[in-house]
């Protein structure tokens, strides 16, 4: 009886004690959730497993959602190849364009504002963090190192 409530703490394997416990609970609890929710559906007159409902919202904005994911991947991929400042200016502008929607795509003023926002916001962050606070930002081919002043513009 006493041994049932005892766990051997062995140095070489103790990193697996807690994960094992958690995984076991997750599996058991997961089954309980499946069964109780399934039973609830049966009670409500539906099948134990129902066809999953619509995943995306009705008429979801495919361009914005997938465009956002693609742009993010491209942005992160290029960040430490191009360098923070130049890469971010390009991508903040691209995100602004993506989010514009078809109605404003031809509006020149919208895009002018996008350019201003991307250049100003990125320069503020880049100078404030990278140059003034000396925090490392992703560097790439467009990173400028001014040796005489000891300044790096990432």
């Amino acid at each position, binding site marked *: 009886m006493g041994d049932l409530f005892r766990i051997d703490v062995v140095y070489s394997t*103790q990193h697996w004690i807690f994960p094992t416990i958690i995984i076991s609970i997750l599996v058991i609890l997961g089954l309980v959730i499946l069964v109780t929710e399934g039973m609830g559906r049966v009670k409500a007159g539906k099948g134990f497993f129902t066809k999953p409902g619509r995943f995306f919202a009705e008429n979801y904005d495919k361009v914005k959602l997938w465009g956002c994911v693609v742009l993010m991947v491209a942005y992160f991929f290029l960040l430490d190849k191009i360098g923070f400042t130049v890469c971010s200016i390009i991508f903040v502008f691209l995100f602004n364009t993506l989010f514009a929607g078809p109605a404003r795509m031809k509006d020149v003023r919208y895009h002018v504002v996008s350019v201003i926002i991307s250049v100003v916001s990125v320069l503020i962050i880049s100078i404030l963090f990278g140059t003034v606070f000396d925090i*490392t930002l992703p560097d790439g081919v467009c990173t400028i190192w001014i040796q005489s002043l000891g300044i790096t513009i990432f």
Partner: protein
Amino acid sequence: MPFAIGPEYIAVALLGVVIGIIFGAIPGMTATMAVAVFLPLTYAYSMEMALYLLLGLYVGGISGGLVPAILISIPGTPSSVCTTFDGHPMALRGESERALKIGVTASFFGGLISLAVLALFTPILAGWAIKFSAVEKFLIILFALTVIAALSKGQMLRGIWIGLLGVLIAMMNQFSVNNAYRMVPDGLKTYMQGGFQLFPVLIGLFAMAEMFEQCETGMHAKYSKDDSAGIGENVKFRFSDFKGQVINVFRSSLIGTFMGILPGVGGSAASLIAYSQAKSWSKHPELLGTGVPEGLIASESSNNGLTGGALVPLLSLGIPGDSTTAVLIGAFMLQGVQVGPLFITNNPEVWNTILVALLICNVLMFLVMFFPVKLLAKVILIPQERLYPVVLMMCSVGAYATLNGRMFDVWCLLLFGVVGYLLKKLHFPVSCFLIGFILGRDLENYFIQAITAYNGHLTGFFVRPMGWVIWALIIIFVAYAILDNRKSKKRNRTAAMKGE
């Protein structure tokens, strides 16, 4: 009582409050996001300076939510849900300026009352916590996880499950005692020595996931220029609006504060409870919801009461009271300050600074919001499509700088953004996952320490009287959750039937 104060600190606090209010006032952006996005800025600050900025963002972020709640009936932050009930009807009657000013004043009182509770309560709780052994520390975290699950309305099991998944994800690292890796793919061992970093996980779950969701629905503006243009002045605000509301202010603020002390309870729960209490104690409950100051005061003083409350468990036990204070833990870690039972004894100056900073931030919040009320109403017009690109850029900087420049952490932003988005789609409470992730490593360490101390016997968890108290609390909360779970399920069912 030494503490840090000076014009530079006040300037930083003002900056924090203003930015916080803007974040809070824009639907879809929250106080948590404000604090998280500006966290990297504090890398270069001293601890005190960082506190002024972050607390300013916190107070401002929670308060800003009342603006869109009143003007367009969309809560800017989840904690101002109940503000819409009475605030918006007032605005429709042309009393929006009065409503905004009542809301701001109520928020201010709520903040002050919770500050008093914070100052009195934290040392007492820390005094108890000092006597905790690994067993009690383990149980306290278990308690925290139970409370969050208990409060995920109608889906307790899912709450617990996703919380434990968070714990599991937190353990994907090199275990500190025997330096062995677990659950880490071979190729990622160089990056995942310390597991996933808090900042990218948090920002991913909250900001990136929110961005994906906004993209999905097309990022449409939820309001037009008219909403803020016609700010009405039919009835002027007078401080006598608060006459007869003193008890309401105190009750609601204290409800907010104590809900904040319970780990993981969001502001929406606090303001809902305060609102329903105000309704049941009111002399004319039928008027609540039609646009009376009483309901507005209850909602706003309770959600600002949360700010002080959520800091109590953070500073005395090292457990965050809500998602915003979870980010604050990150700030303390970055500065090398250990929060927990010994925090006040070891860092009296930082502790005093927190109290002073919180007071100053509340005063600033009041000044910034009360007088330029008309300007404030324009904040809701800042379009999301302009903000999200900049927020993404700032988040990448923050993630990259978390561990001195690694792209791995930036990619985690995307990873956890997708995770957060999926969790929401599958109706799992995201905050449970986050709290599990934050507390997971401590939970494991204390568990291993406890069973090592008791030579592997699990009975060790039941032998100390102090542990019994925590066990009792856990049982009470589970029982409450089961009852409440049944009730809200029944409510959902009747609502569904009525709908049919």
